[in-house]
């Protein structure tokens, strides 16, 4: 790839690294895996840069980041299912433990736990909307589902988190 294409790639893609890392971090829940996934994603983005048409670079990169995260998770699941090494369990525990220690405030901890407990398809739309501020159209592109599905997942995810925050306690009865 000619240097000027690399330059253009860097100008378009690198400004969105924080967003890329944030999504990976929430999807994988481990800072090391998130870093590896983002690096995967950037190189994959470079490989398919020809297919990028001027438009929403952030959503384009996030789509690739999400795919890299899913690939990584699927592979990890297969590995865990096929070969059970004691060390693998340690790896998983360490990663989460480090994250858990970083969460100090109890409300933040409660919300984080509730978010982690959400099915992944709810968690990703919550992060894309509430943390990263994507439009429904953009979320629909990144996740690859119709806008109506984005809407209903977001609604269900929010209501579960509202319960975790105790916001609807008075409504329960």
């Amino acid at each position, binding site marked *: *790839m000619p240097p000027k294409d*690399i330059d253009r*790639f*860097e100008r378009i893609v*690198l400004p969105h*690294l*924080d967003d*890329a*890392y*944030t999504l990976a*971090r*929430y999807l994988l829940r481990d*800072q*090391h*895996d998130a*870093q*590896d996934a*983002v*690096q*995967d994603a*950037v*190189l*994959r983005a*470079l*490989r398919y840069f020809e297919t990028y048409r001027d438009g929403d670079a952030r959503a384009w990169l996030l789509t690739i980041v999400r795919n890299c995260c899913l690939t*990584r998770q699927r*592979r*990890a699941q297969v*590995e865990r299912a096929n*070969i059970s090494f004691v*060390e*693998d369990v*340690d*790896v998983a525990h*360490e990663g989460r433990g*480090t994250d858990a220690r970083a969460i100090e405030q109890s*409300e*933040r901890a409660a*919300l*984080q736990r509730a*978010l982690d407990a959400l099915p992944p398809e709810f968690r990703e739309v*919550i*992060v894309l*909307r*509430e*943390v*990263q501020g994507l*439009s*429904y159209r953009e979320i629909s592109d990144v996740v690859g589902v119709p806008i109506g599905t984005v*809407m209903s997942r*977001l*609604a269900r995810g*929010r*209501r579960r*988190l*509202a319960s975790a*925050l105790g*916001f*609807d306690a008075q*409504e329960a009865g």
Partner: protein
Amino acid sequence: MTCAQCRELLDAYIDGELPGEDAAAVREHLASCAECAREHELLVATSRRIGETLVRYQAPDVLKARIRIALAQPDPLATETPSSKPVATRRLALGGLGIAIASSILTFAIVRNVSSDRSLTDEVVSSHIRALMPGHLTDVVSTNQHNVKPWFNGRVDLSPPVPSLDSAGFPLIGGRVDYVHGRTVPVVVYGRRQHLIDVYAWPDTREHRETDMSESARNGYNVIAWHAGGLSLEAVSDLNRPELEQFVKAFSAAR
């Protein structure tokens, strides 16, 4: 508009995603229905709290450096993660990446040093400098010690320490195998801001006290040599001396 219709549109309404007429209909309903208005308030509060509470992370400097290094390669795509290709070991597939340590801005190295052997230290510094040149690959790049350590199995005849030093501010970047002084040696690479750290390990062939430590400098690179667990270790870096000492201290303590 019924309450059920209103509830269904509330999320899109607070997100500003409803077309004008629908938004107007919801607004009208909310003005006349206390229960839906309460639900609306609850949803707004929930959304605000989620947005305020959840962290928007910043990509770590080391990640940015890794990406810049990869993109600076003559052929960046040749450095693509081995996890997307068939790999020799299953552990590598978990998170290993092949990238090149190429940039001169990245210069933090730990090198196995036998202090009485000047020529060996010279070789180690040369090896470190070579590693900073474009095209010299870091063979496995991963921030996970459980990916890096097993990677050395079968490649070198000793198992180098690969402690996790994140909390001390020295994130793991990866490892490689080098040929120094007639021997294949493992090199573990750490980061510190824009600097790289290589750690070289040899079997200890002489009598040493574990507290023995020597420091020297070559061509502007700092070198610290010490002994631990039957190994001789050497650190080479252009990082300032105090921070390199801090690294060695953390490295030794973590073993």
